[in-house]
């Protein structure tokens, strides 16, 4: 499971984007967080095709890797991969954002379905991930904890509490991936709260920092696999809405209704 298969990863990413299209259509007038889910898809594909050690059969093992989508509004990315793992089925995806669904607009913890943590309130999943990493170390479990967070999410002070404290606990099993798509809810991140050099900020907190193209399969894989004795943060420069011409870098697609027409057009782009 730990060698890069580029072709399979690209195919998986395509299927994940298709699943997102399907869910967005199902969501209908409830809308969905389309753009932010798409920007992290290549990262998710690399992780699950090549690196993460669990599947639907061993998902409840204590020694499994952990994947936390701290940017919980990108839930379609999570549900999409859980569907590919067969932890979710067609009925589940078709219930997305419907009444009493187990798949809401932000993930709700459900270990039977592969959802580790309830996220959605930004800045919290990273902290729980740090707890996973500490517990794994204490129990001498040799797994890895992966968390994806957003750049807007880095406005939250609680993210910096993790940044400040993780090196103290020698958490070389913790890998944070910042999906830096340069947008947040109401506009460009630089306009709302400029993060400036995320790279130098995290470095100054004594993390191992990589900055990559968040859509380059090889760069993503190499960054995740790179050996380090420090907790690792990967700053992945991405494009919000990546994968479809109408949504790329278009912040209207932060949270929007996908019409049937748009769905059909988008499908063509996936071919």
């Amino acid at each position, binding site marked *: 499971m730990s060698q890069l298969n580029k072709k399979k990863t690209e195919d998986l990413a395509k299927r994940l984007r298709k699943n997102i299209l399907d869910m967005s259509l199902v969501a209908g007038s409830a809308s969905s967080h389309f753009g932010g889910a798409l920007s992290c898809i290549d990262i998710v594909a690399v992780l699950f095709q090549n690196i993460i050690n669990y599947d639907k059969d061993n998902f409840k093992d204590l020694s499994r890797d952990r994947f936390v989508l701290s940017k919980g509004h990108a839930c379609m990315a999570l549900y999409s991969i859980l569907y590919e793992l067969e932890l979710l089925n067609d009925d589940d995806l078709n219930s997305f954002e419907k009444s009493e669904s187990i798949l809401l607009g932000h993930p709700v913890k459900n270990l039977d379905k592969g959802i580790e943590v309830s996220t959605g*309130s930004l800045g*919290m999943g990273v*902290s*729980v*991930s740090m*707890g996973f990493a*500490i517990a794994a170390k204490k129990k001498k479990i040799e797994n890895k904890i992966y968390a994806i967070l957003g750049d807007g999410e880095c406005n939250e002070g*609680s993210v910096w509490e993790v940044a400040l*404290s993780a090196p103290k606990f020698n958490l070389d099993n913790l890998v944070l991936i910042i999906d830096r798509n340069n947008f947040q809810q109401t506009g460009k991140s630089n306009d709302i709260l400029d993060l400036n050099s995320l790279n130098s900020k995290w470095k100054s907190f004594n993390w191992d920092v990589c900055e990559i193209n968040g859509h380059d399969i090889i760069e993503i894989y190499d960054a995740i696999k790179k050996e380090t004795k420090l907790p690792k943060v990967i700053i992945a420069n991405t494009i919000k809405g990546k994968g479809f011409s109408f949504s790329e870098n278009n912040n209207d697609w932060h949270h929007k209704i996908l019409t049937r027409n748009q769905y059909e057009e988008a499908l063509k782009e996936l071919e």
Partner: protein
Amino acid sequence: MIIDKKKISLWSKMGSRATFGLSLMDVVKEMEDLMVVTCDVSTSAGLDRFKKTYPENYIDVGIAEQNMIGIATGISLFGNRVITTTFSPFQTLRCCEQIKNNLGYMNSNVKMVGLASGLVLGTLGFTHASIEDIGALRSIPNMNIISPADCTETVKSIYASLNNDSPTYIRLTGGQLNNPVYEEDYNFEIGKAIRIKKGKEIAILASGTRVSDSVLASEKIYQEKNFQVSVYNFHTIKPIDKITIKEIVNDHDCLLTVEEHNIIGGLGSAVSEILAEMDKKNVKLYRMGVEDFYPKGSDYNSLLKLLNLDQDGIYNKIIKLLS
């Protein structure tokens, strides 16, 4: 753990915080997976000895309460029993949303201990005194809330909460020389109020260190007026003991709740919610507590006196009701 008179005497002299810290030295022997997560408060929580003796079971995340709750949650999801602790306002309000999402919504097995709750830190001002903590957490589903009456009950509530899976908040009140309510071991059950004095007409429902002063006030009344008021220890504010409240309402004409907390949101509010739904209408309820304002900071005894929450204050209230 065996609880004897010697331990009870020692604990009451130490106060609830030191008792809490000391008790964990015994707890961890029975529960080796216990993890204690704190925010730079070992000494204040009586945890210096625990920290030195069991460094692998002790995690200090620095003064970062939101991170503390997230980390505690992550650890609990790996199967460990977890206690978090810091001063009450920071334990409950600073990280309230993390408590909501990680403990309430995810129903995580984490126990939070709020140090020096109520009015005991009055000389530090109301950034540190804590009269809002119960109110804030009561509206979070799945959360148990306990306010131990004395140091012995502090120990018993720690054990009781660690022996179930519910997210729990334990608020410690009082300082050193914490009057013992219980002189020997007794049966403690989360959610079951305890009758300490059986009387008639007037019933005091108290929590935390107000229980002891309520008992003393009732004894003074009995000596002077040969009249026994009932006194109940409502150590668990959530889940509130509806059955006992209903019995009390049926057997008395007047209820008095006493707590070191705002009269909005705490024990008084919880009791009034039950009373409001009962058929018996001619029962009066008086909520004694902090009447929704911030008093000027002052030492503990002065604040209790100012707010009529000390033994004399409770006594005077009852005298007024009896006349």
